[in-house]
């Protein structure tokens, strides 16, 4: 697959959409893989007791899952220079079935290579929603191109 070129991109251009489906098994798997064993991500009674609507996804699972399409698009995970987000709303995950986070990736800014920068940088902005509500804000990925 050919790599994207900075010169071919324009600000506002959509580079892809994808869906992340989260169920309880996925949360347990992420808990084990990451070492984040906070019971709000797997114990309904605990989550409710501390005032949450129920079990919620790890913010870090959502953050890690929504960026995968950008890694595939850029073709090299080592090209991701910076990735940040704010967590604006929890993603409740039901006991049965799953929940979908819809992701849209758009070119947010372009910084061509110049005398000071040896390589160009594209900032990709991620819109992530669950049931129409934004779950991440200022989710930005800076990639080397």
């Amino acid at each position, binding site marked *: 697959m050919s790599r994207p070129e900075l010169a071919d991109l324009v600000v506002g251009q959509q580079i892809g959409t994808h869906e992340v489906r989260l169920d309880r098994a996925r949360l347990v798997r992420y808990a084990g*893989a990451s*070492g984040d064993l906070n019971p709000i991500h797997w114990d309904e009674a605990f989550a409710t007791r501390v005032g949450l609507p129920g079990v919620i996804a790890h913010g870090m*699972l959502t953050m890690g899952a929504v960026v995968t399409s950008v890694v595939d698009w850029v073709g090299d995970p080592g090209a991701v220079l910076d990735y940040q987000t704010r967590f604006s709303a929890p993603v409740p995950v039901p006991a049965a079935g799953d929940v979908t986070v819809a992701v849209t990736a758009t070119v947010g800014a372009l910084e061509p290579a110049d005398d000071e920068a040896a390589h160009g940088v594209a900032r990709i902005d991620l819109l992530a929603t669950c049931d129409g509500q934004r779950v991440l804000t200022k989710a930005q990925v800076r990639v080397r191109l």
Partner: protein
Amino acid sequence: MPLNAAYAGRQYAPDAPYVVGREKIREFADAVGSTHPAHHDVAHARGLGYPDVVAPPTFAVVIAQRTEAQLITDPDAGIDFSRVVHADERFTHHRPLVAGDRITTVLHVDRVIERSGLAMVTTRCELYALPAELPDDVAPVDVTSLTDHVATVTSTLAIRGADA
């Protein structure tokens, strides 16, 4: 117990090294659903110029979380983990993190604020690869020997008040 504002500005000593494993990268990539072959296939990663499989963009949280525990589990810091909500997170990669890296991390408490029932703590983890001559079974003593700066991980936790 309220959040301890005196912790703002605190810097910890480098912690015991974390050795980045190939299988851990694969396991983490599977957990977040990252199927890019550079996380899984050594030959593919080498073809891109890396010595081994490359960590996903958020993998460093595994290392940072372990380092942040020095603060979170410190009773004097006053952080009630059952009331913690993650507010923001940022990864700055100074170079790609790959299997085989031996990482020691320096924890900084950048900010502690409390307003209207909500307390916020911002931490910064600076990840360094150990110099080849240092053993990876003990924490390095001299922070100035750490020159291979791999990543910066910044995280803000919000701690909800008892009635918030």
